């Protein structure tokens, strides 16, 4: 594989997706208030997708491992209204600990 070509393709494609997304958002904002109100639900949807994918997948497979315990702990911390840093710390600690102690 020619790495410079790979870098070029990825760089151009990625900036075009970034610019294109922003452009779509701006156009929608100018044209229609209703559609703009609907755009508000894109971020939670994509972030929800990222949370799920980053927790329950490994390579090409769906998995249930230590990260699931981390996420459950994070949910509990959020429900208890813990500060953000505590939530992140609890998730990391629960994940690292269940890896170390349970080998899970």
């Amino acid at each position, binding site marked *: 594989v020619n790495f410079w070509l790979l870098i070029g393709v*990825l760089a151009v494609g990625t900036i075009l*997706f970034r610019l294109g997304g922003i452009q779509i958002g701006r156009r929608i904002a100018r044209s229609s208030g209703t559609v703009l109100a609907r755009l508000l639900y894109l971020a939670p949807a994509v972030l929800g997708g990222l949370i799920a*994918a980053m927790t329950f*997948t490994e390579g090409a497979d769906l998995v249930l491992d230590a990260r699931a315990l981390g996420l459950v702990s994070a949910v509990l911390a959020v429900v208890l209204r813990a500060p953000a840093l505590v939530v992140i710390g609890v998730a990391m600690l629960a994940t690292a600990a269940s890896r170390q102690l349970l080998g899970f």
Partner: protein
Amino acid sequence: VRDDGELDPASFRRVLAVICGTVLVFGATYGLLASDLGLTPLEAIAMSAFVMNGGAQFAALGAVGAGAGLIAASLAGLALSLRFLPLGATAGPYLSGGPTRRLTQAYLLTDQGIALGHRHDGGIDEGRYLAAGFGVFLTWMVGTVIGVWGRDLVGDPAEWGLDAAYPALFLVLIAPRIRTDPRARRAAVAGGVLAIATYPLLPAGIPVALAALGAIAGFAGAGSLAPPETDEPTDVL
């Protein structure tokens, strides 16, 4: 913490510092992987500078490591950049300025910037979006350099549970809206379910982009589209 549930500047800086720490470690992991696969230091660093998307870089190099050619590796990487279309669309209406400025705003578009810039009313705070994007850029570059040259400094991020940091962060940042707006809650759940349900069927990266369709579950159905007033002080940070 402000009464309206928004991040105050001090909390924002603290969270951003933690995020930058994790980006540093993942950058170093990437630099290590890149040099293991035979990229020269210049190629590895240039890839981080020009692509600036860890997911795409890991996916493309992972494909190369698994024997993929240029086209397959490019597609694997680009699939991971596809989510910038919906993420960019959420930010677009709230970013100011002309074409030159827009290029900077686009280059600094990151998951972290969208999450940290996410306002309680569903909009994007441009200052936080740009600051987070810039912090991610800076630490991603430094992390890459450390990984390329400082092999012995890098351990296994999984050992410290670093891979659990992002899901937790994203959760924290959408929590105020999820608490007060049932539509946002439906959108987030639908996005998660869509990503998982399609994950075994589709190439990497596509499921998370598809999760954007979860927004439909948010705005379809009964009720007003305007974000509801906060009925209680949300004390997330």
